């Protein structure tokens, strides 16, 4: 709200101090912008990957690319405006609860998200040059794509911090609304990190210990960090639920739209957008973590991490390993579970097309990798809990 009735003779200082005393009653516009930005990014990323699996050929101006870069533009412009208005408007409500960087003032989350927007913008010419130099890469894990991913991750992290700064100062209904938005963005952060691993955590790898190591690197820190910072008792379950719901819905919606390969060689006839694989069953270990954390609230972070990592990995392996068997079975080759869909480039004789598995590591190699996964789960749980502890104290 602006002090429209303030008379010209009123001193700016008095007016500003009045404004500062007035806490916002609604979710601020820039929080909505950041939530929209992360949603655009994740819709765009899944759409783009599906585009490459079903149509293949694209330009910079595909709707999927526009959705991705809308994230950067929205985050960059909204957070840039927020920083500039906080810096140069002496009556800004955020002036007293902002951080200071390079002479500019603004919420910490705004700086992080703006950094993400710049990284995303940087990735565009870098990726374009990469294509010129090394060919049109069609893989997720490449240096320019990682710059883009870093940017998107920063927009997510910025959104989390931006919401948290407000949430930790708010009370009542506003705090509850911000808490829901915080959990939603946390879920989208999990979506982002799992999509980065999409190529190396596909169905055919779910019977290797390495698969569980890779998942243990990304899921526990998000679940633990967001849960700890949100103070909500079912936070991990909610975050994993957002992840599962989003990936499931994207998969089901994408298959409704027709698509045909425009690149060869074509080994699978494709007539619709190819969906992402069925989401990982992270919701089960997340539920276990929420239950565990209710009983270990008074424990130290290290002890909690030890239990959390162990519980996460054992519960996740216990549900995902047999679920992978189900996904490989004829019963999963339908619209719901989506294993009947393939990218056009998947060779007919490949393990994926034959619903097979990469064999588990043999003997001691398996247990070595499993131990590594356990250590990773414990370490990333500790990181997540520490990150959550820090986020609890965010005020700006």
């Amino acid at each position, binding site marked *: 709200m602006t002090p429209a009735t303030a008379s010209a003779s009123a001193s700016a200082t008095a007016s500003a101090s009045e404004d500062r005393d007035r806490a916002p009653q609604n979710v601020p516009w820039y929080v909505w912008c950041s939530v929209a930005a992360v949603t655009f990014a994740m819709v765009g990323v899944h759409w783009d990957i599906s585009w490459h699996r079903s149509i293949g050929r694209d330009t910079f101006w595909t709707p999927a690319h526009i959705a991705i870069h809308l994230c950067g533009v929205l985050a960059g412009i909204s957070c840039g405006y927020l920083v500039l208005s906080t810096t140069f408007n002496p009556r800004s409500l955020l002036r007293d*609860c902002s*951080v200071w*960087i390079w002479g500019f003032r603004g919420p*910490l989350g705004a700086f992080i998200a703006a950094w993400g927007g710049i990284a995303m913008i940087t990735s565009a010419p870098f990726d374009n040059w990469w294509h010129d*130099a090394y*060919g049109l890469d069609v893989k997720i894990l490449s240096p320019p794509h990682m710059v883009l991913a870093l940017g998107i991750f920063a927009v997510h992290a910025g959104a989390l911090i931006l919401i948290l700064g407000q949430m930790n100062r708010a009370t009542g209904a506003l705090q509850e609304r911000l808490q829901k938005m915080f959990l939603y963005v946390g879920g989208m952060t999990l979506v982002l990190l799992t999509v980065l691993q999409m190529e190396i955590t596909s169905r055919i790898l779910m019977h290797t210990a390495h698969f569980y190591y890779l998942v243990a690197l990304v899921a526990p820190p998000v679940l633990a960090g967001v849960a700890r910072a949100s103070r909500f008792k079912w936070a991990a379950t909610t975050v994993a639920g957002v992840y599962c719901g989003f990936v499931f819905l994207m998969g089901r919606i994408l298959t409704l739209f027709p698509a045909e390969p425009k*690149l060869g060689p*074509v080994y699978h006839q494709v007539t619709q957008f190819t969906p992402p694989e069925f989401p990982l069953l992270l919701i089960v270990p997340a539920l276990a973590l929420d239950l565990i954390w209710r009983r270990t609230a008074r424990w130290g972070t290290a002890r909690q991490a030890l239990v959390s990592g162990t519980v996460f990995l054992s519960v996740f392996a216990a549900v995902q390993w047999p679920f992978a068997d189900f996904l490989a079975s004829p019963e999963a080759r339908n619209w719901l579970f989506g294993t009947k869909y393939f990218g056009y480039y998947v060779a007919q004789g490949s393990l994926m097309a034959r619903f097979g598995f990469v064999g588990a590591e043999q003997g001691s190699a398996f247990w070595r990798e499993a131990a590594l996964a356990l250590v990773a789960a414990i370490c990333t749980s500790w990181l997540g809990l520490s990150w959550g502890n820090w986020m609890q104290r965010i005020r700006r």
Partner: protein
Amino acid sequence: MKLLAVCFVIAALPVHGHVGSPDVFFEGNAGPYRLLITIRPPQVVPGVAEIEIRSASPDVRQIHIVPLRLGFKGAQFAPVPDVAQPSHEDPQFYTGALWLMATGSWQVRVDVDGAQGPGRISVPVPALATRVAGMQKAMAAILLPLALVLCFGLVSIAGAAVRDAMLDPGKRPDPARVRRARIVMAVTAVLVAVGLWFGNSWWNLEAGFYSRIIFKPLQLKASVDGGRLVLQLEDPGWLNRRTDDLLPDHNHLMHLYVIHVPEMDLVWHLHPERGADANFEQRLPPMPAGRYALYGDVVHANGLAETASGEIELPPTAGSPLIGDDAAGTGPPVANADYTRTSSPLARGYRMVWVRGEGKLRARQPYEFRFRLEDGQGKPADNVQLYMGMLGHAAFVSADRSVFAHVHPSGSVPMPAIELAQPENPHAGMAMQSGLPAEASFPYGFPKSGAYRIFVQMKRAGEIVTGVFDAQVEP
């Protein structure tokens, strides 16, 4: 006495199927429609190939183009074809772009629809990475400042997170908090440096992977043993290429051009046979001492053509008379090239005439190079015969020898590749035996400007004749 001469492979000239001339030129019939097709393959793979099609028929309504793997074992489906776009200025000229997603042998299938019904033709095209682009200064000028902003920005954000972010509204950081922030900034700076180092290592790794797919042509290691030229195909190591999978082209596994350098006044078109030890051997014809450039055209089982090249220093060779499809030609030294000359004298009063018109030759433009055999009275020669299934064979060689292309009247694609791409048409690209004209045309475009020598070979009355011409190509 056994003559043993040491050979010297001086340099292998880079670039594939032909040398320094990557574009594909093809002229043929898609059903009732005569087409001249130019395909400019990408220099990086995956990459985009540019397609240009000129229809000789005005009644073409629409042209579709689609890329398919050539020589691929296994089921594959065609992607959705692209519609080639007609030019506004010239409605018989169509263009398109196709993505070639994997290294190796491909074909572009062209489907024509017109007043005379549908027609189809497939043109082989290699997809070979030939370069790694460096970063342009302008691009570096954009990316470097952005990278610096990102790096320093990250350090500053980390400092602000510790110094200010946890303070209640209105409070200022105490000295201890400021000190802690500085420590965190220092640690973040180290982490950023580690991240940059990791990123650079990853970049180098990716560049290393890519450099392995960059095409490395076969090299010809040549030696002379008892009057025989012995050629060994040396593989510098490129993917899973083999040298024992060659397909015969006009009944020969290798077509070898031997050119006296630097004068380019003597040329031989020879056909070495493969011996039991996998080397190629050729009885040498009479040759003066000197240095010779060698260009050996071979075709792999998947239709991928390449030119193995090398050089050899030879002593005077008494040699044996040419037999079979082997042929030789002479011309003035290239240093004395006359770029306006359109007639090349032949034996018995015959001559070969380049019907070239008045216009300047431009680089990267497709042309129909037309050559006519004439008798002493200037009339078209009679009794013209096929030379290895073709009205003629032409070699376009740049004076600096960075370009070599062996071209047929059907274009720059070798016959085995055409047969793979058009299995339903075993005579594709070949001329019929009866009623042969005295004129042969070759679709080709020079890849770059400069001086070129053109060797054209035709056959009449059982004799293979060689015309030698020169061309100055403008940018």
